[in-house]
């Protein structure tokens, strides 16, 4: 289907993150943790043991002072549609127990926690490190379980979890629309927690196929790029940066290769 | 694993994969059934075999 010819039932939810606006403040990370009942430990300094569905990375241009430059890059799940956009994202195709799924209806890669038995093959498959394993039992300090969100189940030890674009919000929005006799939901009705929280309005979320949605235009911005496009994972998270070195940092280039971070069409 | 589990789809990958699987399982199952059955029969009828192999 060509983009622009918009079939209302097929959506491809995606995100455009403006790195020029992102301040690296971390509000998105915390909003995500609160929304998705993400557990916490006394020590969370080992980032490879810490569960952060959305992690803000710090990039630098590698130059010495004072030519140094840094940029923050929030990394949610990329919700890859995979080679040829068939939904064979790196993780979905490898899960032996069908515990992670690519929805052709929404383009969201979901994780079925009660199905996952913790083989971690999907984590090995994901080049973005968006998948997190529950190494510990989720335990809340006495009383703190009161702030848990009833729309999201708490994951048990030994399973993998990841960002699902706050899918529960999609379901709630759909239910609301249904009770109001609508079949479609509005753009603003379904927004993930990180998008809602971002104090810099750096994150935009919507249906990448819907010309009425803001992301539709933004992804065609000349500043747009995606992470590791060369792997053909086809991420649905786009980044915008006016700095060339940042756009270059999105992918690996071999020496003397013509770097393609100039304006492009998608 | 079985056609009644919901992730089952009737497509080529399932035919090939599960075809191979059930084929192998059947051979193993039937082979063992044969061995046990024959041995039980031999035991009851008192026809004991001898190892020629060793």
């Amino acid at each position, binding site marked *: 289907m060509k983009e622009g010819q918009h079939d209302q039932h097929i959506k491809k939810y995606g995100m455009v993150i403006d790195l020029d606006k992102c301040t690296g403040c971390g509000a998105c990370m915390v909003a995500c943790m609160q929304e998705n009942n993400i557990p916490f430990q006394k020590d969370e300094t080992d980032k490879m043991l*810490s569960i952060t569905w959305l992690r803000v990375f710090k990039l630098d241009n590698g130059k010495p002072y004072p030519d140094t430059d840094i940029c923050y890059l929030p990394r949610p799940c990329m919700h890859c549609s995979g080679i040829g956009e068939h939904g064979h994202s790196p993780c979905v195709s490898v899960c032996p127990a069908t515990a992670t799924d690519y929805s052709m209806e929404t383009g969201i890669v979901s994780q079925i926690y009660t199905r996952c038995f913790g083989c971690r093959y999907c984590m090995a498959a994901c080049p973005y490190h968006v998948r997190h394993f529950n190494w510990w039992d989720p335990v809340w300090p006495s009383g703190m379980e009161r702030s848990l969100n009833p729309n999201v189940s708490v994951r048990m030890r030994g399973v993998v979890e990841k960002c699902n674009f706050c899918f529960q919000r999609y379901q709630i929005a759909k239910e609301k629309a249904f009770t109001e006799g609508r079949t479609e939901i509005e753009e603003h009705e379904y927004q993930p927690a990180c998008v*809602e929280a971002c104090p810099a309005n750096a994150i935009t979320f919507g249906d990448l196929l819907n010309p009425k949605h803001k992301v539709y235009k933004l992804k065609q911005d000349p500043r747009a790029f995606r992470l590791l496009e060369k792997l053909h994972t086809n991420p649905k998270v786009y980044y915008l940066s006016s700095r060339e070195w940042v756009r270059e940092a999105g992918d690996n280039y071999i020496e003397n290769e013509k770097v393609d971070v100039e304006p492009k069409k998608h | 694993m079985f056609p009644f589990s919901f992730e089952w789809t009737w497509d080529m990958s399932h035919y090939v994969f599960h075809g191979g699987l059930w084929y192998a399982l059947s051979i193993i199952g039937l082979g063992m059934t044969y061995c046990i059955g024959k041995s039980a029969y031999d035991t009851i009828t008192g026809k004991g075999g001898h190892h020629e192999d060793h």
Partner: protein
Amino acid sequence: MKLSRRCFLSFGIGAAAGITLSPLPWKLTDDISIWTQMWPWTPVPPDGAYTYENTVCTLCPGGCGITVRKVDERAVQIAGMEEHPVNKGGTCILGNSGLQLLYGPFRVEAPMKRTGERGEGRWKRISWKEALSEVSSKLNQIRASGNPHQVAAVSGSKEGTVARLINRFMTVYGSPNFMTEPSIQDSYEAMLYLMQGATGSAGFDFENADYILSFGSGIIEGWGAPVRMFLANSNWRTKGTVVQVDSRLSNTAAKMDRWISIEPGTEAALAMGISHVIIKENLYNKGFIKEASEGFDQYKKLVLDAYSPARVSDVAGIDPSVIEEVARAFAASKHPIAICGRGKGDVPGNIHEFMAVHALNALVGNINSKGGVWTLPKNEYIRWPHPIMDKVASLGMQQERVDGAGSKDYPYVQSLLNRFPKKINEGSAYPIEALLVYNSNPLYSMPDTKAVQAAFDKIPFIVSFSSYMDETAKNADLILPNHTYLERYEDVPTPNGLQYPILSLAKPVVKPQLNTMHTGDVIIKLAKCMGNSISGAFGWKDYKGCLKQTLGSRWNQLYKKVYDVDSGFAPNKWVFETPSGKFEFVSSLVKNADENNIGIPHYYPTALEGDEKKYPLIMVPYGSMKRATGYVGSTPFMLKAVSDETLVKNDVLVQINPKTAQNLGLSQGESATLTTPVGEAQVKVNFNEGIRPGMIATPTGLGHTGYDEYMGNGKGVNANQVIGTVEDPLTGLNMAWGIRAKLTRS
């Protein structure tokens, strides 16, 4: 024998078949799959009716409107309130994780009385009645001895009804020692007073400004009202230019249009240099200078004589062409604003730097006009009758404050908390017998923690109103826990830096979870316990009644909408309240303004603590949105978001340029000892190309010792342990932006 074996065999086969065909194995398998998914210790959040309640976040002075999502009586999420004009739906990281501060086990559950040694953590729960009588009898006893001035109070803010109630209580009780936590607001207020004669706070019309020249202000790191600044910055990314002057690659420096690396502490020189170019090239607003300013000639002479780009370049390490370029761009812009106050704005700063920067705003005439710097009146909605003081109170109020604020030495400020521990440790004119602490955690958030602790050790009776077992509460004798911000009413005045007055109302979104009491109510009740001379000034039944009466007709609007913008407000363009009625480049409010240019914007090098030979490096503390530095600590979620370039296990990482580190023989991640004249800390080294050679940057907001491990106890080092204070000669405020230091392998 044969028969029995056959029997055995058929029995075995039959049993196997029977068991397989029976529901037993299938049931067990099913049970296992269910059991593995619902472990009894995995919480299942109960569902219920969803409601949304609006209120205002008071965790910092940013004044964001928030919407709390509730499921029955449980608050489950905080989001920004879409229609609130300050934050327009955004939240900061602290605000977003606020529910952890509501439900955390580190809260104080009930009034507590110390039973063990101070700081030991042994407490006895007491009733509110007992607690109030403890405090009132102690205060009565001090008052009866004729020394009411020997009681001091520290409040997190001077704005708002609760702070004003405490202040009022102190007044009728008879103590002038009401202190507030310092910030750049104090310097801005002093500067506005000196140059514009204004008694108000500074507001910035950022939404209409098109060129921002920031002298180290952490625009996206917590300066001003954080979320409002984020939004302003996002706008500037498409329209507007922001130039960040910074001695290291701060987040703000990295994200703005341009970063000018500067020798630390020479920002005033750069401002003067820019001024030089603007004046020399006749780029200034002649109308403003002619009609609305005073003392320009004297200022001009100083600027032209001493601050040529070449000379500034020598001091600040910036190429003269860059200075010229910035000066021209600044002057050529329609609505340029120059701002200052380093980082988050926790340290008030050097008043002459503020004056030098603000002089730039005057040169372009962008004061009290669109896209410029405005002056806002303060607290004008609180109009309580003047309290009647008895004789004891009057005598007490006539005593000089311990911190010296308002005295002839420090006439431009109302509070000098930074001087308080120093004076006590030096032996002040009179001892402090009791201290009340509200919305403040001085034992953590004040520089030179050791000195603060020593001073507090000298105070025999400390009462904390904290909701949390923070460092100060832990070291108190009595804790009268306040409701948390989501459980209480409170008026929220105009956030820092906003250009128009807005009043918001924080409302309880959940019932008090613990046996706590609103500090406003505690003060009113306390006053009532203490006899007519004091209770007379507190005619309200309770705090809510007081607030309702104070807000008067605005109550209904505030209750419904949470916020109320004073839409009639407009700044008086180019109108000033100085003796001359004009903007004064040379402040006539300063006696002998010419003497050492004390009343004129100028630059002088900061005398940092420490000997250069012994301490070859300069250490600066640096803040981040990810680490709370105010009276509440960072939440567990925030600590999760803290970078591994800041904290690894329990070690803080100090940021250092690889070249400097290599000169010191330090490698990446290595343990080292950071020593300053104030203290010593065990740290680890992180190579960071964004740090100026010869400098170290230490993250603030870590190393708590109160709270609990989830709130970062023992995680890193509190930067205040290794930084001291430097008094501004004119205001007495702390202007220490750094300290001399050395870093050695350990």
